[in-house]
């Protein structure tokens, strides 16, 4: 269906349909400083401020060194530039998001950005830097937002997502961070690197992640059983054991084996159920297909702790009973 020329011409003002917000979120390109500064100046103008002085830094961690320190967030001060921009964007998101929800739009970017990249970068900061926004990492809510009849209000936010990293507006001065210089992801685009930092900035700031989950450096660089067993976070423990390899972990830590049975449909391989940690059982399963090096990967699934039989544990992961799962003919 072709639109009349006039409509076509006007549509260039509207954000392109199907814009690749994931690519913006993962971008490691140098910031487009003029475009980003212009967008920030537009937002300052919208709350009655002149354009600020811009201070560019290489990373959010470096921003922590130039932002006013030690000032607690005051919830009673609504007159600051950052509070007024916050009120404005909050209102904008509320109005434009509701429409999207009616259309059933859910952002697949949320696990990548809000639960992946943002916590990883936060892990490089000494604490909260106060009110600020995430530039390219605001892509998740922008992808969910329908600019509808108010494209002009949304435009600066979209420009910031396309052009820069994180930024913090203050009176007369805005601190702007460059994007990372390297971002590593897994097959699902979640931040992940099994041999180094998942995110690196130009000043050397590094963040580590395992399949989307922020982890301390040791999990990637020097995972070992003692650290795993003394780590308080179960999530971090699980990532570290996966990094170490379940085979290695089980061999060294020797968790109690609750049972082992032949895996139906996967000849020559066992289903092994371990009492892993307090109230957590682990089912070790061998992949049905071979890896590139000819071996088969053993992967671990957390199973319900009241199930003590490996066949029943495996069956339950597929919503079946043990006698049903026992009829499995083939696993690939």
């Amino acid at each position, binding site marked *: 269906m072709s639109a009349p020329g006039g409509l076509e011409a006007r549509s260039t003002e509207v954000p392109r349909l199907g814009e690749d917000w994931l690519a913006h979120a993962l971008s490691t390109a140098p910031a487009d400083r003029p475009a980003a500064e212009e967008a920030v100046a537009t937002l300052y103008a919208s709350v009655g401020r002149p354009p600020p002085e811009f201070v560019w830094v290489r990373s959010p961690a470096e921003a922590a060194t130039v932002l006013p320190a030690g000032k607690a967030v005051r919830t009673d001060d609504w007159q600051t530039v950052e509070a007024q921009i916050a009120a404005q964007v909050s209102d904008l998101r509320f109005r434009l998001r509701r429409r999207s929800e009616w259309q059933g739009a859910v952002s697949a970017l949320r696990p990548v950005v809000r639960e992946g990249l943002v916590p990883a970068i936060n892990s490089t900061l000494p604490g909260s830097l106060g009110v600020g926004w995430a530039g390219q990492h605001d892509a998740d809510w922008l992808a969910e937002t329908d600019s509808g009849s108010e494209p002009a209000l949304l435009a600066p936010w979209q420009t910031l997502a396309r052009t820069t990293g994180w930024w913090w507006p203050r009176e007369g001065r805005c601190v702007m961070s460059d994007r990372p210089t390297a971002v590593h992801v*897994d097959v699902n685009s979640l931040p992940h690197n099994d041999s180094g930092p998942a995110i690196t900035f130009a000043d050397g700031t590094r963040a580590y992640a395992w399949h989307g989950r922020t982890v301390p450096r040791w999990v990637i660089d020097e995972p070992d059983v003692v650290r795993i067993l003394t780590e308080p976070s179960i999530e971090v423990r699980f990532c570290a054991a996966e990094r170490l390899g379940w085979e290695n972990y089980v061999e060294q830590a020797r968790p109690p084996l609750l049972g082992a049975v032949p895996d139906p*449909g996967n000849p020559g391989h066992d289903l092994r159920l371990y009492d892993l940690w307090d109230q957590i059982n682990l089912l070790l399963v061998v992949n049905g297909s071979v890896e*590139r090096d000819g071996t088969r990967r053993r*992967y671990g699934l*957390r199973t319900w702790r009241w199930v003590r039989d490996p066949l029943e544990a495996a069956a339950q*992961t597929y919503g079946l009973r043990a006698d049903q799962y026992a009829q*499995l003919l083939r696993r690939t």
Partner: protein
Amino acid sequence: MDCVLTSTHNYYAVPKNMNLAELVDRTNVDTLDHLERQATVPVVDGLQAQGDLIVIPFDLLDPPPSTEAGTEVPPEGVHLVAALNGGNPHVLVADPGTCRWSPDRDATVVQNSAPVYLLHPEHGGTGIAPGRWLIRRQWSATGLVAD
């Protein structure tokens, strides 16, 4: 695993002895290059798993799903698991007119009159004999499993 697999039903007008290379050709999904491309993909008439998916015959379920498989599988296949941001999908591939599917809550109902195939970039291919099937995802205690 030899005795439990049925041979390809060659009285249907389908390519006999599909191999992985042919499956890859039919879809826009490629598999890892170390998987054997020329080996015939076995067709399984019964319960089988491909990574985080399981294919359950209707007669194993009590009661069987009431959903009718309504939509014909198109030539390029159906992505049964909408992989997050283009990750690893499981693709259902069928010859024209031989297979219908419908979502059934968070699972998929499939009815096929000829062998159809599931293709996955890392797990390769597997065949499903004619019948009615419920294809369900795997859960662990922490949520959906994705491979």
